[in-house]
């Protein structure tokens, strides 16, 4: 059965690949504005929802996309997000607070406004494809509807916090427009993400989609908005699909938000910023380039003859595993409800049907950090959907035991190639309102291209897998320290308030606390939490994976190597886990060389690692027994010798007539 399904997959893959090569299949299209007119006539921003709707059901796409909703459709009452913080109200970017961003999207009804929806778009829209709440806010009504400030009242849909006055003010949605789901960002070959982000930051939301096309030459920045270059359009007012660069989403498209991706031959330069988010949190780089060929200043670089990620090197792209849930070219072998006797379901929708209404829910796993779209958990292609590990691990002793206790990643991501964030401390921000961020895996400053990059060894934490088994997965730990006002509604202290306190001269935690109290916070307290980020990318092939028995089966086993949390924790506060998902970290917060660390324990996690985990009491008992025997033997032997000598002594004494028998 397997061979048949793999043949089928191969055939379908070939189909999709050829489609990707010949975007010539896509007809030329007119670019339409929100009113449905050709933008060449109106000069208004391109509306993707209108333009693409000619053939694709854009309303369906927007409503079937976590990338658009960002948790909007999974909102809960504040503080009721499973595993979340007490002020989270959704598992996604729209409602889940992230200490790496810090600013808090204020839910309706909150007394203190932090981020209104418009500010959320300005600040966090860079990592949102648009649509969903960027069009409808909390209320689910178009944000650019007339009179929003009256019917939206003083709520976060209508208001933003004025950075000058520190007071809420109304946002002019009519002028800014809203952000439509940006098809071009993922479906063109050279999207201009910087131009898009600039539009968002500057509050010209409606133009962000148009700006994404800046690299195609179709549009150029003008005094007001963007200008369309008629030369690039046909006489009928259409533009060629090839000029637009329409394409399947390539890894580079995904990388615009999901960390560093590079496909070309140019030497890779590491982008170590919080903006390259998944690289910052997990140290992953998705590139097929050999590390030794990159431009990064890597330790032991000349021996790093491997690619940053073996899948990227083998041309397995993001969408090969994270495919659209109704893409007929892919099937999910992890599909539940097959009754056990069916291995493969060949029935699927036609390509035409798919192209009309392609689901934009993408297959995914379940990571602790990816709390989003839980309903899609474990739909993606897993390692064992493609790999027959038992075939390639013939050399491995105790294969079954290893497979039962270890994720593939535990050995095949032995080392994070790039640095990742270790801690972010907002307790005393800089005058510019920036936190103190420490990175692991780099010797020196992260902004210094000459700093030596060592990468880091992930910490291995037990994780409950879909099959019910607990396996160790590699993780990075990010420690966040920040002020929380533990009033009736616990919220992180607003950044503008912190900045004000710092600007007023507060330079340590005590003075910051005093300043916050002066600003009306009743009981500001420092909270320290640790978010584990599971690592599933940056995979290495067999010859680079952990192979040595002694690595794990030894006293100094990597399995309980501590991972440092930060240079120090505020007031030596004990951290708490947050959003562990299916991870069940077992171990202890402790200190090594004065640094706070987490030291995992395999024994506590229910594993018994030969050569590493011993039952302490057995060793104690055994050694006590040994010592007892040795002691007994020594005493017994000593007495024998003494008595033997004593028995001989009288004879000797008689001869020498000097010494008596010893007492």
């Amino acid at each position, binding site marked *: 059965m397997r061979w048949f399904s793999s043949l089928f997959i191969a055939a379908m893959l070939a189909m999709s690949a050829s489609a990707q*090569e010949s975007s010539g299949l896509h007809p030329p299209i007119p670019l339409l504005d929100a009113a449905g007119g050709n933008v060449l006539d109106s000069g208004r921003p391109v509306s993707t929802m209108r333009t693409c709707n000619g053939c694709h059901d854009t309303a369906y796409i927007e409503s079937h996309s976590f990338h658009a909703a960002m948790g909007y459709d999974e909102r809960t009452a504040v503080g009721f997000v499973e595993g979340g913080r007490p002020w989270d109200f959704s598992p996604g970017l729209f409602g889940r607070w992230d200490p790496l961003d810090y600013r808090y999207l204020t839910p309706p009804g909150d007394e203190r406004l932090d981020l209104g929806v418009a500010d959320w778009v300005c600040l966090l829209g860079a990592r949102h494809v648009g649509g969903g709440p960027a069009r409808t806010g909390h209320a689910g009504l178009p944000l650019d509807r007339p009179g929003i400030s009256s019917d939206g009242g003083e709520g976060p849909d209508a208001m933003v916090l004025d950075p000058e006055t520190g007071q809420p003010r109304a946002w002019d949605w009519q002028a800014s427009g809203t952000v439509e789901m940006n098809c071009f960002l993922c479906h063109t070959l050279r999207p201009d993400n910087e131009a898009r982000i600039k539009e968002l930051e500057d509050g010209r939301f409606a133009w962000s989609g148009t700006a994404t096309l800046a690299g195609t030459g179709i549009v150029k920045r003008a005094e007001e908005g963007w200008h369309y270059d008629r030369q690039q359009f046909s006489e009928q007012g259409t533009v060629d699909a090839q000029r637009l660069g329409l394409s399947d989403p390539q890894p580079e498209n995904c990388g615009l938000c999901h960390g560093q991706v590079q496909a070309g031959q140019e030497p890779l330069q590491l982008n170590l910023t919080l903006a390259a988010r998944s690289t910052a949190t997990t140290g992953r780089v998705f590139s097929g380039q*050999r590390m*030794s060929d990159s431009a990064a200043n890597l330790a032991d670089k000349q021996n790093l*003859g491997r690619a940053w990620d073996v899948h990227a*090197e083998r*041309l397995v792209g993001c969408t090969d595993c994270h495919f659209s849930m109704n893409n007929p070219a892919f099937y999910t072998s992890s599909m539940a409800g097959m009754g056990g006797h069916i291995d493969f379901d060949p029935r699927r929708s036609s390509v035409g049907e798919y192209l009309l209404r392609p689901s934009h829910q993408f297959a995914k796993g379940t990571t602790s950090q990816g709390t989003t779209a839980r309903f899609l958990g474990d739909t993606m292609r897993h390692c064992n959907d493609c790999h027959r590990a038992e075939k390639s691990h013939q050399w491995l002793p105790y294969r079954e035991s290893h497979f039962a206790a270890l994720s593939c990643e535990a050995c095949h991501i032995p080392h994070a190639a790039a640095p990742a964030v270790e801690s972010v401390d907002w307790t005393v921000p800089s005058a510019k309102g920036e936190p103190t961020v420490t990175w692991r895996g780099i010797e020196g400053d992260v902004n210094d291209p000459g700093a030596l990059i060592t990468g880091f060894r992930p910490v291995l934490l037990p994780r409950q897998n879909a099959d019910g088994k607990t396996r160790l997965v590699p993780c990075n730990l990010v420690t966040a320290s920040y002020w929380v006002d533990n009033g009736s509604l616990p919220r992180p202290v607003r950044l503008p308030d912190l900045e004000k306190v710092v600007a007023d001269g507060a330079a340590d935690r005590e003075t910051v606390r005093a300043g916050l109290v002066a600003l009306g916070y009743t009981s500001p307290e420092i909270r320290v939490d640790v978010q584990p980020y599971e690592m599933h990318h940056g995979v290495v092939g067999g010859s680079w994976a952990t192979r040595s028995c002694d690595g794990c089966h030894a006293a100094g086993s990597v399995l309980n190597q501590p991972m440092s949390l930060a240079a120090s924790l505020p007031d030596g506060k004990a951290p708490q886990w947050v959003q562990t998902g299916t991870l069940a970290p077992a171990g202890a917060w402790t200190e090594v060389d004065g640094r706070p660390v987490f030291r995992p324990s395999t024994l506590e996690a229910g594993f018994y690692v030969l050569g590493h985990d011993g039952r302490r009491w057995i060793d104690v008992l055994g050694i006590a027994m040994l010592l007892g025997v040795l002691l007994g033997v020594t005493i017994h032997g000593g007495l024998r010798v003494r008595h033997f000598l004593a028995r001989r002594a009288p004879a000797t004494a008689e001869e020498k007539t000097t010494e008596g028998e010893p007492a």
Partner: protein
Amino acid sequence: MRAVVIPVAVVFLLIAGVVVAFTLQRPRPADHPWAKVPPAIKPTDHSSLIKGPLKDGPSVTRACLECHPKAAKELMKTSHWSWAGQKVKLPGREEIMAVGKKNLINNFCIAAGPNIAKCSSCHAGYGWFDDDFDFTKEENVDCLICHEQTGAYEKGLGGEPVEGVDLLAVAQSVGPTTRRNCGVCHFKGGGGDAVKHGDLDGSMYHPSQRIDVHMGKANLNCSDCHQTKDHRIPGCAMSVCIDRPARVYCTNCHSETPHVDQRVNEHTDTVACQTCHIPRMAINEPTKMAWDWSTAGQDLAENPHTYLKKKGSFEYAQNVRPEYYWYDGRAYRYLTGDKIKDPTKVLAINMPIGGPDNPEAKIWPFKVHRGKQIYDTEYMHLLTPRTWGEGGYWTEFDWDKACRLGQTPEAPYSGEYGFIETVMYWPLSHMVQPKEKALQCTECHGPNGVMDFKALGFDGDPMFRGNRRVTGVLRTEKGGEK
């Protein structure tokens, strides 16, 4: 006594059984390439064996032949002496003939024939000044060029030792050939270091591992791969060797499927080892990529890497990707006197034979040298001008005179000449890289790959479209299950 022997024997047999059973379970090391490397030849100290005085080259040879009476006869059968290969039926032609340096044209210095006194400084013989050279005279064989170890030996016109060489000291130093013996000619093909081959240059005398894994890491000598018997040195440069005689194959030492990854092994049916393991050529020293003779003779600013009045204009490149073509080990060859069909088209002086439908052919890496050289616009064939020496182009800068002096019965000169674009293909086999530096999937396949699969005759990237057997391009019997 038996009462003692039997139980003890049983016990030991049992233990031996356990040990053997466990030992068999352990993976055994595969056949190792080192097993195929010949043991180093112990040099014999010749300093007491050769007595002077030695007045000239042939007298050295006579001294050698006293103890090695067969050596000259053996060498005289090889192309190092004859500058022509064995007589074979030429691929794509009816003729049966021997071709070699002696009678072929290339797009570097064009032809050895009219300039032989100069060119023969790399000939393993003494006295080849003109057509009167006696190829049957044993004492004309030059033993020293391949065996002397002083480094002070130098050959000049006609292959004679230059003035001032201490022949006795040189002769007394002889030993097994070293990299330098080979490199002194083969690294300088085309008139200077690194010019011609792209994979052979002075950096190979003492290469680091970065340059060549065999010579840099494993410290092999040329003759460890070009394993010589009776002075017959296997190996084949496609320019002069157009059939498949005794070649040196990677598989002489390595397995046909040496990779751990089966998907990589699947490639070896279609892709030569060299393709992935020589990802770049001319790693350290720039090699000549193009040579335009038509611009010669002008008084322009001279630079040995861009323009010389004698030779015209050049292009050099260093550490570049080769070009990839099918090659089954045979080549078409332009022979002196062959007609040019269309002078507006690029003339291939040689060209690898092969294609996706040829089961023997594999994709190989090539240095492609593009030239523009003189031809007879009347007779429509390439001309063989005299460049060096009296009346040669390099002395008088007169093409007409050079062609008149250089013409041969096969390629006569009408008096009318022009310049035609030509191209030569040089398959690469040296400067081999280990797996850590070899081509990766993405370098050939996918949107950023350098391999032009359509031009190679595939209907698209075979990673997605299937290989040449799957797509029905190659339909040989053995292909059924492949």
